């Protein structure tokens, strides 16, 4: 037996991850031992505190550029920037998840296993109990995402993928209203997610095979080995490109890129709205963080070969998202397609092989995350007796009934459309400019054209809110509680500030835009 050598572990560098996972475990204990009445407060404060502490650790670590835990985790500029982004956005999402004054008992049902639409289910929907398991589940998901963007080998990445995906599947099933839709969404998400994970895992296997046979190096799936193998491996390149393709499919599924986006509208619509916001903001950051790392660190030697294929995927994604958004009649589905189109824009940034492209993509992720969380926060507020009124016809005339919230939502939609003085404009600029510099004009042209198409559904909602007469069925906007107000304020302010003075965040992203290998 060979001697087992423990890898050295830099616990400080891993602290954000450890804090989130530790908080999640503690949350499970709280579920078990703290009386029901105090549970929500305890869980919510624990979650927020943990996010805050993790964020502090990210800031403390901000100078780190190292690889630790036996080469499994890389803590470098992009890792820290994206972890920070995930934590800030997760804090906003936690505020939305914790809100209980908008709906009695919150947006989550206490017993998800009760048969949907049964008498028990209706009683439970009316009751004031709500699930508090959502907090540890969210913490697990956040922890998984933190690992995902830091993973320095494909296996760690796969495990992180599962760690943050499984809680999300569960969270999707917990909506208080429209239980059937919620359960269906969770089921679809789970099945398709598992399916996509299989692709990813098979890709890992192919890549592993490709790395074997380099003289003086053992086979492995850590990024340094893969990087070396791309140029040196004697193995057939079919293994490499087959592997890259399958890996990309697994990641593009999470990023909601076409044609792997099919789950997105159904899941976004069925999931409880705070969870939808969490997925739209944080999952996007995590998925693109991983995509950036895989393509910039591991496979950068093959960039010439994968760029046309991924470029085609990007164009298809933008087209599908923009064109399908045009005919949507449900606000959550509309935002889902908008999120798909945005995945296309982000891919343009991923494919720009420069530091500017990397920092632009990271800026985009943050800016988009703030806006989309604010958008879903408004969605949680427009409601009637049956819960959220998400059908667009119900939003007609909202500007007359609740001018303040209609104005906020208008502002967010203008940001999505990329109007100057909003973060949407700056982030599109930050992504398209490096792509143009890299000679990928075709991607930029496609991006601009689809942005124009996409402006139509956004403006349609604006026109509907302001220029239509309010009908009998126009719901009112519920006055938000403190938590939702806080999240909404942060989101709207960030959308404005990043549009007017984007300098500091761009500088931060620029300073962080370098991977360690």
């Amino acid at each position, binding site marked *: 037996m060979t001697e087992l050598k423990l890898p050295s572990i830099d616990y400080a560098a891993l602290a954000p991850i450890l804090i989130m996972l530790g908080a999640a475990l503690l949350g499970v204990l709280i579920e078990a031992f703290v009386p029901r009445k105090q549970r929500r407060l305890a869980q919510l404060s624990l979650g927020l505190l943990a996010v805050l502490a993790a964020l502090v650790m990210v800031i403390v670590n901000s100078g780190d550029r190292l690889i630790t835990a036996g080469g499994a985790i890389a803590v470098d500029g992009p890792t820290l920037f994206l972890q920070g982004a995930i934590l800030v956005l997760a804090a906003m999402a936690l505020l939305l998840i914790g809100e209980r004054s908008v709906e009695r008992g919150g947006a989550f049902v206490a017993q998800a296993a009760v048969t949907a639409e049964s008498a028990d289910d209706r009683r439970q929907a009316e009751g004031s109990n709500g699930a508090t398991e959502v907090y540890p589940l969210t913490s697990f998901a956040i922890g998984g995402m933190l690992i995902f963007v830091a993973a320095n080998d494909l296996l760690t990445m796969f495990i992180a993928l599962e760690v943050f995906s499984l809680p999300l599947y569960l969270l999707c099933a917990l909506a208080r209203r429209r239980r059937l839709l919620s359960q269906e969404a969770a*089921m*679809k998400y789970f*099945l*398709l997610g598992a*399916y*996509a994970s299989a*692709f990813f895992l098979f890709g890992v296997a192919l890549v592993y095979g490709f790395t074997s046979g380099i003289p003086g190096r053992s086979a492995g799936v850590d990024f340094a080995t893969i990087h070396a193998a791309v140029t040196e491996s004697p193995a057939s*390149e*079919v293994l*490499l*490109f*087959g592997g*890259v*393709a*399958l890996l*990309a*499919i697994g990641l593009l*599924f999470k990023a909601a890129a*076409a*044609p*792997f986006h*099919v*789950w997105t*509208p*159904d899941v976004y619509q069925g999931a409880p709205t705070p969870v939808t916001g969490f997925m739209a903001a944080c999952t996007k950051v995590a998925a693109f963080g991983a995509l950036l790392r895989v393509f910039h660190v591991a496979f950068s030697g093959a960039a*010439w*070969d*994968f760029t*046309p*294929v991924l470029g*085609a*995927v990007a164009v298809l994604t933008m087209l*599908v998202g923009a*064109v*399908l*958004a*045009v*005919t949507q009649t449900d606000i959550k589905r509309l935002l889902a397609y908008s999120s798909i189109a945005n995945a296309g824009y982000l891919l343009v940034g991923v494919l720009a092989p420069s530091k500017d492209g990397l920092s632009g993509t990271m800026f985009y992720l943050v800016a988009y995350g703030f806006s989309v969380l604010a958008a879903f926060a408004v969605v949680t507020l427009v409601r009637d007796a049956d819960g959220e009124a998400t059908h667009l016809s119900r939003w007609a005339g909202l500007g007359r009934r609740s001018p303040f919230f209609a104005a906020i939502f208008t502002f967010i939609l203008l940001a999505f459309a990329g109007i100057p003085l909003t973060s949407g404009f700056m982030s599109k600029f930050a992504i398209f400019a490096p792509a143009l510099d890299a000679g990928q004009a075709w991607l930029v042209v496609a991006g601009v054209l689809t942005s124009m*198409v996409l402006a*139509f559904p956004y403006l349609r909602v604006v026109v509907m809110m302001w220029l239509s007469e309010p009908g009998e069925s126009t719901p009112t906007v519920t006055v938000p509680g403190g938590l939702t107000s806080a999240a909404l304020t942060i989101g709207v302010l960030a959308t404005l500030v990043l549009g007017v003075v984007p300098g500091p965040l761009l500088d931060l992203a620029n300073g962080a835009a370098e991977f360690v290998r």
Partner: protein
Amino acid sequence: MNAPAEPAGAVTYASASGLLGSVWLLVAIPLASAAILLLLGRRSDRWGHWLGVASIGASFVLGLTYFFQLRGLENKSVELSLWDFIAVGDFKVDFGLLFDPLAAVFVLLITGVGFLIHLYAVEYMAHDEGRRRFFAYFNLFVAAMLLLVLGNNYVMLYFGWEGVGLASYLLISFWYGRPSAATAGKKAFLMNRVGDAGLAIGIFIMFATLGTTQYDEVFNGVGSLTATTVLVLGLLLLLGATGKSGQFPLQAWLPDAMEGPTPVSALIHAATMVTAGVYLIARSNPIFSANSTLQLVVVSVGALTLLIGCIIGAAKDDIKRVLAWSTVSQIGYMFVGVGLGGGAYALAIVHLLAHGFFKANMFLGAGSVMHGMHDQVDIRRFGGLAKHMRITWITFMMGWLAIIGIPPLSGYFSKEPIIVAAFTRDDWTAWLFGGAALLGAGLTAFYMTRLFVLTFHGPKRWTEDIEHPHESPKLMTIPLVLLAVGSVLAGGLMAWNDGLASWLTPVLGSEAGEAHHPVLSHTVITILSLLVTVGGAGLAWFLFRTGTATEPQPAGVLVTAARRNLYTDAVNEAVFEKPGIFLTRALVFLDNRGVDGLVNGLAAAVGGGSGRLRRLQTGFVRSYATSILAGALLVVAAFLAVQAGWLA
């Protein structure tokens, strides 16, 4: 840019130090007050007007302080750079202020007369619901005007220029419920746009040829430009000036601007907006002095406008409109002055300041009359008011005597030299412009006397509902009295020992060394002008001493033409409005059929595609999984194709 030999009179500005470092407060205070009034809304209704008055008062006191500070300095042009306003590539615009003798007198006029008008408006607008809003706009107006005269480059000037345009629009259509007021506001705005476009293009040319818009750099660089460039640049600036100052051909908006409350008329016509054009030309004197054709155009515009104003003014029956046309005509005199160039620049400024006093005085007097007469404005319906409104009568009399140029009131000292200067040219144009200025003096005396006599003397011709016209309250009469004192004394004081002219020498240059003599002797011109003045006034007195019919009478060709503004509105309509409407209709047609057709077609295609694609989103996991599988096969195939070299 550095010419090998810098001209001896190169323009240099000192940088501001000490107290003068806070010149920006002049603009900031009224602006802050306007912001407070607009933001607080109804909460400031009770005290808002006093804040408005106080902010202008504070600016006036500061202006006086700065003025005395400036007197003690060696280089009397002080520049204060606040921050980079615009910095794009080579294009740099300073957010900077310039406080020099010219700016200083404008600041004193704007804040001094402006303060009195503000004070007056407190009472005048007392019963108006929108008084706070009114004062907010009023403050905004003064702030914009101060920015206009204090900027140290053309972009700053343009900034203030547009601010004045905006504020005037808001104020003229203040009673927006009245269609006539709303229309007048729009008319003022649109006609100003024409002039503003000229100014903007002029600024573009400056940047294109000189690479800068800073005053000192532009003025020092004028020598390196071709004569044609200077001419075009000057004409564009002149177009801007005619728009703001209501000169031919853009004069039509000014009389309509009387739809606003009377204090607005006083502020626009006496202290602020209309003087902007004169300021622009006086400020740009190195440009205008560099091209004699340009100067000839300016004088011609001035002379033509002063006659147009007089003739139309003589035929109008609305007290405010007569005063408005009189303003058009008096600004014409100032344009003659700035167009003549040399020493006449300063004369124009003297007339501008003197005019600021007596015209504000008379506008506020007219407001006081209207206040006592149930807002009646028709002078045919006044008469015999002297007995009932003693203070208004006496103060108005001072304004009247001043404007027609009776010595020793201020108009005599300010207008007379311009007439003399108009005669001081080398060729036959001396007779043309001198004659026009002289004729204008006679006509001015005629129509102002008509106005004065019909309003205050002769038999009463009041409408039935008025029994006892009352004098206005103290808050309105005190500003009147102060302005009347100004109307009497200002001209003499400024002309004393060429005081103002020598004060302005650093900016406008001096006449020294120029040996020109008028074509007639100085004494002859003075006697002639006094003769036509007394003649005009006497004729009017004779004709109107017994009052006039209360309805307009049929009249000859000239009077009818004058009543219809010499058909200038008709010309505008035929030349601009009709073709404009036609063009708009043609464009709408093109837009509907051509552009919209294309756009709608594309939109329909997208919508149809969207509808079809949507059917793929069936909701069944099995079909989703299939499409993911298909996508996966495609992606893998594409990667392998790339690897095999089939693509890329």
